Structure formats: structure tokens, C-alpha cells
């Protein structure tokens, strides 16, 4: 698309007045300035051979004609590229490619520009012509800038700036700062833009780069316009204008006229606006730049239209009718027909007005359809991509969250399972213990019952039969020997019966049974025994009595067998809620740490104490006797 600097220079401003038509203008203005910087570095190599000189001359021609005759400029740079390839001059090829991509960018031919930029970047792999590479990156930044890929653009410009800085290429550095400022204008961060422009201006001023200074000033004018500082804007642009005039850079002068015209239109200073647009028109005529001429005419017509000078608008329409039809860009044509239809409406020529309106809409559609829609589409795609990425991230986050929840639930479940298993195992263990205890109790009870039965049978049945026999034989005095045998059998049976279940225990209870047991023990062993019973008062539970009796029996047997004692004290004490049995001897004692090696007797005691939910403690010390204490809850 062709560049239309007139009336398009101030993005914000133009948009407010004319609605659309703005964005290209700002870009164009900025592009011109950049081009100036780049060309300043296209110096022919001093030691170049003839072919090189030819190429350099083409580049020089391109440089000179870029702003005046684009056709010649294009032709020259094409030749330069071709020759550089033909004569294998990579350094010049790089310069030529940089120049040509610059031209394409100016003329909004992005694809072609990108091709040359890529080729230039390829050359970078083999060569280290830093200044030119800085320019390549600069062009790449411009390319992204035109595609509204501002992040990539800034990246490229920063690369360009870095290379420039490292190689003391101050011009390139100023250019990069200027370009970064341009990106910030696009991003509407005017303060950042001003910062970069100020940096660029400082370098340009120090290096006395008049052209550069003028361009930065022009751009600062845009910044000030957008910041609402219109006086500063007018000052900057006038200063830029002065420099361009002094340098006789008529194209830039023309643009500055246009910019000033816009600015004054915004300030409603119609006379000043009309003056600068006329200056712009005249200069463009001199330069035979039809696009600029028509752009100026449109602006002038808009001013006259607003002022109500319909006749003057009609005059412009008829004067420039042919030029619009032949050379007008789509946008200019669209505007031209819009104004034409308005004028015809004023003249009540409705048919022609409608025709003009249709043409206006047609051209407008084509411009918008061509560029804006594509732009919008590109924007849309980018937006959608962003949305998709965002959604993807959100989904990822959601998935991660779900995963976390699942992990958490799993952990809780596993924990609960382990807990349940633990509780179950504990329960089972407890139940098993209880069962074991119950079964031991049952077995013991059955055993005792059996013992009792056998004891009674021996005592009452066998014993009585033996007694009967003895009584019958007792009348026969000569059977003395047989009587003795019979007596010993009888005694044996009685002893067995007693050991199995003493009749005393059953008949007269625990106290009597213990007393009897101790009496018998004393008699048979000579061990001195004492028995103290305190607070027992009557019988205990029969089962408990049997257990306690057996415990005492075992304990006494232990003392008799192992202690080597001379005295045994036994006390049976009943408190209000407990009962304790204490068996003391004055024997040799033993080391309680080796107690596990104790025999079956102690094991039986332990079992019975456990069945009674009691507590057994054995207190012994070598040569200090043994005290066994059994405490049973009641």
C-alpha cells in the first residue's frame, strides 16, 4: 500500500477528526526518519574494485532517489543486489539487501521486505559486518512493527541497539532508540516513547546529525500531540521543519507542513491550517508527488467543507477530478467521492450524489476490506491464540488441582484404610487375648472340676472300700503284714486325693485350707510357718479360692524345694476392694533378673494370677530371702 503522509501523520489527532485513515500515516512518518538513518551508513568502500564501485554507485543512487523518485531508487537497488550476487560481494549484498528491504518496508511490501531481511540474516552467519547487521535487525524490527508484532519488534530493535552500542555505531544506536520510541507510540505509552526519543535526540545532537535531529523532533511532535501538549507539539514540528528546510529535504518539509496543517485544524485555527496545507500542496506539486498533492487537496477540501465554502470544494473537485481518477490511492478515492457526494447533495443533484456515495463506499470497502479486515483478522487470530493458551493454562491448572484433590483423597483413603486395619488388628488381638484368657480359665476350671471329681472318688469310693477291707481284716490279728500294706495303700490314696483337691478347701474354705496346708508342710518338713489372716470374714468366690489355694500351694512348694529357708510367713489380707497374699521366706533368695528361668511352679502362679486379673511381684535378693506378693482386685 502506498504511503500517504498527508493528514495521516498524527495518529490520535487524525482519528479524532476523520475517524479512520490514521494508522498508516504515523507509521509512514516514522519510516521516513528511519530510512534517513540507514542511508547515512551506506558509504562505498574506499578500496573497492570496479565491480564494487558499480554496486556502491547503484546504492548511492538508491539513497539519493529514495525520497524523490522511488522508481529510480527501486531500479538502482535491484541492480545493486543483482550485481552483488553476481560478483560475490557479500558485504555490498548485505548493504543492498538492507536498502531494498528498507524500500519495501516504506512501500508496505512486507513479504518482499521479509525475504530480503532473511537473506541478510543468513549472510550474518558467515560474516561480521556489524554496522550492517545492526541495520538488518533494524529492518526486522520495522517489519514486525508493520505487522503489529510489537514485542518481536522491540526485541529486534534491542538487538540492533546492542550491536550498535558494542561497535560504537552511534548512528545505529540513535536509530534503534528512535524505533523503540515508535513502538511505544503504538503501545500508547507516550512517556516511554518520549524517553527513547530524548535518548535518540541527545545522540543525534551530539553527533550533529541534523537529519536525525529533525526526525526525532517530528516524532516528539507526535508524542506531544498525544499527550495534549499542543504548543510543545507545534514547537517541535516547527523546529523539525526548520532543520529539513535548511537541509533542503523538501519531502520532509512537505510532511511537516502537512503535520502542522493537521495540528492547526485540531486547534480550530483554520487560516493557519489552510496556509500549511497550501504550502504542502505547492511543494508536492513541485516534487510531482501526486499522492501527496491529492492528500493535500483532500485536507483542504475538508477544511472548506467545514467552513461551509461549498463552492471552493466544488472547484477543487473539478480541478483535481482527473488526477484523483488516475492516480488516487483507494483511500484517497474513497474520500474524494465522499466529499463529491456531499457537494452534490448541497447542489440538490441527488442522482449524481448517490452515484458518488456508492463509489465512495465501494472504495472504502476495498480499502477496509483489504487492509483493516486483514489486520482485524490477524488481531483476532492472535487474540484467539492467546485465549486458547489461557484456556489451556487454566485447564492445566484445573487438572493439576483435580490431581491434587485425587491425591489428597487417595492419601486420606489409604490413611483411613491403614487406621481401620490397625483398629481391626488391635481389636482382633484384644479379642484373641480375651479368648485365650477365657479358654485358659475354662480349661483351668474344667481341670479343677476333674481333679475334684477324681479326688472325691478316690477319697469316698476307693478310700471307703479300703477302709471297709481294713475293718474286716482288723479282726484277724495274724494278718499284720497285710494290714500294714493296706494301711500304706490307704494313706497313699488319701494323699493323692488331698493333693488333687483338699477336702478342707471345699468344706471349710481358703483360710482353713491354707492353715491345713501349712500345718502339713510344717509337720513334714520342719519348716516353721506362720499364717496371718486379716479381714477375710467368710468364704470368697469358690473359683477364686481354688486359684488362690493353688497359688499358695505352689508358692509354699517353691519355698520348700528351692529356698532352703527356716521360716515361712504367709499373710492373707483383705482390704475393702482388694486382697493380697504375701509369702515370705528367709531363704537364700535369688537374683530376680534371672527370674525367667524359673520353673513350671512360677509359671502356674503367673497364669492363675492373670486369670484373677491380679498382680504378681517377686522381691528377692541373694541371701536376703524372697517376698512374693499377689494382689487381687475384688
Amino acid at each position, binding site marked *: 500500500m502506498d504511503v500517504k503522509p498527508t493528514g495521516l501523520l498524527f495518529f490520535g489527532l487524525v482519528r479524532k477528526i476523520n475517524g479512520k485513515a490514521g494508522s498508516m500515516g504515523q507509521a509512514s512518518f516514522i519510516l521516513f526518519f528511519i530510512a534517513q538513518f540507514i542511508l547515512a551508513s551506506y558509504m562505498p568502500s574506499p578500496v573497492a574494485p570496479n565491480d564494487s564501485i558499480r554496486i556502491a554507485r547503484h546504492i548511492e543512487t538508491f539513497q539519493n532517489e529514495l525520497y524523490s523518485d522511488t522508481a529510480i531508487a527501486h531500479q538502482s537497488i535491484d541492480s545493486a543486489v543483482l550485481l552483488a550476487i553476481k560478483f560475490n560481494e557479500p558485504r555490498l549484498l548485505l548493504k543492498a539487501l538492507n536498502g531494498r528491504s528498507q524500500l519495501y518496508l516504506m512501500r508496505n511490501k512486507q513479504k518482499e521486505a521479509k525475504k530480503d531481511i532473511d537473506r541478510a540474516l543468513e549472510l550474518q552467519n558467515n560474516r561480521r559486518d556489524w554496522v550492517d547487521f545492526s541495520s538488518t535487525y533494524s529492518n526486522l524490527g520495522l517489519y514486525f512493527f508493520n505487522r503489529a508484532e510489537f514485542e518481536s519488534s522491540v526485541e529486534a530493535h534491542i538487538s540492533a541497539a546492542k550491536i550498535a552500542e558494542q561497535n560504537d555505531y552511534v548512528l545505529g544506536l540513535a536509530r534503534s532508540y528512535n524505533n523503540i520510541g515508535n513502538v511505544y507510540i503504538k503501545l500508547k505509552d507516550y512517556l516511554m516513547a518520549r524517553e527513547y526519543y530524548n535518548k535518540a535526540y541527545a545522540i543525534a545532537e551530539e553527533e550533529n546529525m541534523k537529519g536525525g535531529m529533525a526526525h526525532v523532533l517530528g516524532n516528539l511532535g507526535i508524542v506531544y500531540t498525544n499527550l495534549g501538549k499542543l504548543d510543545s507539539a507545534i514547537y517541535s514540528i516547527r523546529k523539525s521543519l526548520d532543520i529539513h528546510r535548511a537541509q533542503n529535504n523538501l519531502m520532509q518539509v512537505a510532511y511537516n507542513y502537512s503535520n502542522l496543517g493537521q495540528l492547526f485544524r485540531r486547534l480550530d485555527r483554520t487560516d493557519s491550517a489552510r496556509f500549511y496545507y497550501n504550502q504542502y500542496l505547492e511543494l508536492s506539486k513541485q516534487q510531482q508527488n501526486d499522492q501527496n498533492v491529492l492528500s493535500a487537496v483532500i485536507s483542504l477540501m475538508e477544511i472548506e467543507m467545514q467552513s461551509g465554502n461549498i463552492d471552493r470544494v466544488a472547484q477543487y473537485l473539478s480541478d483535481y477530478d482527473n488526477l484523483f481518477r488516475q492516480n488516487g490511492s483507494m483511500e484517497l478515492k474513497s474520500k474524494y467521492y465522499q466529499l463529491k457526494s456531499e457537494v452534490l447533495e448541497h447542489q440538490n443533484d441527488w442522482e449524481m450524489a448517490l452515484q458518488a456515495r456508492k463509489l465512495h463506499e465501494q472504495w472504502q470497502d476495498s480499502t477496509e476490506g483489504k487492509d483493516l479486515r486483514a489486520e482485524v483478522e490477524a488481531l483476532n487470530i492472535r487474540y484467539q491464540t492467546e485465549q486458547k493458551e489461557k484456556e489451556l493454562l487454566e485447564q492445566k491448572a484445573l487438572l493439576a488441582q483435580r490431581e491434587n484433590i485425587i491425591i489428597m483423597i487417595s492419601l486420606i483413603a489409604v490413611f483411613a484404610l491403614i487406621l481401620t486395619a490397625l483398629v481391626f488388628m488391635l481389636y482382633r488381638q484384644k479379642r484373641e487375648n480375651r479368648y485365650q484368657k477365657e479358654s485358659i480359665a475354662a480349661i483351668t476350671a474344667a481341670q479343677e472340676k476333674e481333679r475334684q471329681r477324681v479326688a472325691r472318688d478316690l477319697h469316698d469310693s476307693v478310700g*471307703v472300700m479300703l*477302709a471297709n477291707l481294713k475293718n474286716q481284716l482288723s479282726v484277724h490279728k495274724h494278718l499284720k503284714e497285710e494290714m500294714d500294706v493296706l494301711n500304706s495303700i490307704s494313706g497313699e490314696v488319701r494323699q493323692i486325693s488331698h493333693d488333687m483337691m483338699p477336702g478342707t478347701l471345699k468344706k471349710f474354705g481358703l483360710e482353713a485350707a491354707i492353715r*491345713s496346708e501349712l500345718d502339713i508342710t510344717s509337720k513334714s518338713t520342719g519348716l516353721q510357718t506362720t499364717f*496371718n489372716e486379716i479381714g477375710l470374714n467368710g468364704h470368697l468366690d469358690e473359683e477364686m479360692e481354688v486359684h488362690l489355694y493353688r497359688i499358695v500351694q505352689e508358692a509354699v512348694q517353691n519355698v520348700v524345694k528351692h529356698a532352703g529357708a527356716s521360716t515361712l510367713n504367709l499373710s492373707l489380707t483383705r482390704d475393702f476392694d482388694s486382697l493380697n497374699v504375701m509369702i515370705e521366706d528367709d531363704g537364700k533368695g535369688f537374683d530376680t533378673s534371672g527370674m525367667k528361668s524359673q520353673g513350671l511352679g512360677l509359671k502356674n502362679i503367673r497364669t492363675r494370677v492373670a486369670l484373677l486379673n491380679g498382680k504378681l511381684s517377686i522381691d528377692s535378693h541373694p541371701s536376703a530371702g524372697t517376698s512374693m506378693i499377689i494382689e487381687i482386685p475384688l
Partner: protein
Amino acid sequence: MKILLADDHRMFIEGISYMLREAGCEVVGIAQNGTEALAFLQQNDYPDLLMLDIEMPEMDGVEVAEKIKEEYTELKIIVLTMHDEPEFIRQMLKLGVDGYILKDAGKEILVEAVETVKSGKKYFGEKITENVFSGFTQPKSIPTKLTQRELEIIRLIADQKTTGQMARELFLSKHTIETHRKNILLKLGLKNSAGLVKYAMKHGLIE
């Protein structure tokens, strides 16, 4: 001499009856258990003597002896039993039985016992006397209710020794010492160590 026999062993009773009749005694009745024995007493003329076994079903000899000594004080009782444990003899003597012989004592002793009781004396066989003697006298021969160990502990308490100190001195555990202390107090019907010291001084257990 009218004798009632109370025993659940038929063969044995027959033997005894035979021996008694031979000795000129009149066996007026035979009871298989305590209940039958008491019923017999209510329905018939009083016998002079009850030969009583201890181990019987329904009502045993101990209970029968108790009842008879309450309600039929005139009736003499000779316990005729297999039990030779001193505790049995002691318990039966407490109830006031007149004689105690073992079932396998033989005819001579049986007759001797019956004759002795008939003459108004008590009869215990040679073996029984021996057992009863030991059963009665041996526990009483131990001079005091307090054991040597208990006396030691009382003295140490009077010396204001702590449980730990006592334990170390006597090679006992604290638990044993505490049990002793508790038993001593219960035995003497005292409430605390202060009371124990007072008691010990009063009875000359400590100086």
C-alpha cells in the same frame, strides 16, 4: 445303746452295722444322707448315738452336726470319716461332736469309741489326737501375731526411715515395704504410721 448310722456308702454301713451288732449295739436306723438322718430323728424314738459321716449328698455331716447340737443336745455324735486333716477335726470339735474316728480305724477302736462316748466321755483316736494336737497347738505356739519382718519394719518406721531407706536396708523393694506397712496397719487395726509408733511403744515393741 441305740445307734443311728448316717453314711451313703451301703457296703461300708453294712460292715459297720455288723461290727456294732457283734459288739452288742442296736442299730436302729440307717440314713443315706443328712436329710434322712434328721427326718429319722423326727419320726422315731431318739437314738443314743449318731455315727456321722461328713461327706454325704444333700446335707453333709458338718451341717447335720450343727443342727443336732442346736436341737438335739442329748444325742451323742461320733464322726466317722475318711478325713484325717487336722482342720476337719478342729472344725468338728468346734461344733461339739463327742467322738472322731477314721473309717478304717478297725473294730477295736470303733467299739472303744462307742463305749467311751456311752460313758459320757469324748473319744478321739490315737492318730486323731496327734493331728488335733498339732493343729491346735502349733499355731498358738507362735508367740505374736507380728512376724519378725513386720517388727523390723515397725522399728524402722519409728526411726523415721523413708520407704526407700527401708527398702535399701532390708534388701526389699518399695512395693514390698508398702505392702508390709499396709498389712501391719490392717492387722493391728491402726490408721497410720503415727498410730503404729504409739502402739509399738505401748506394747514395748520399740524402746
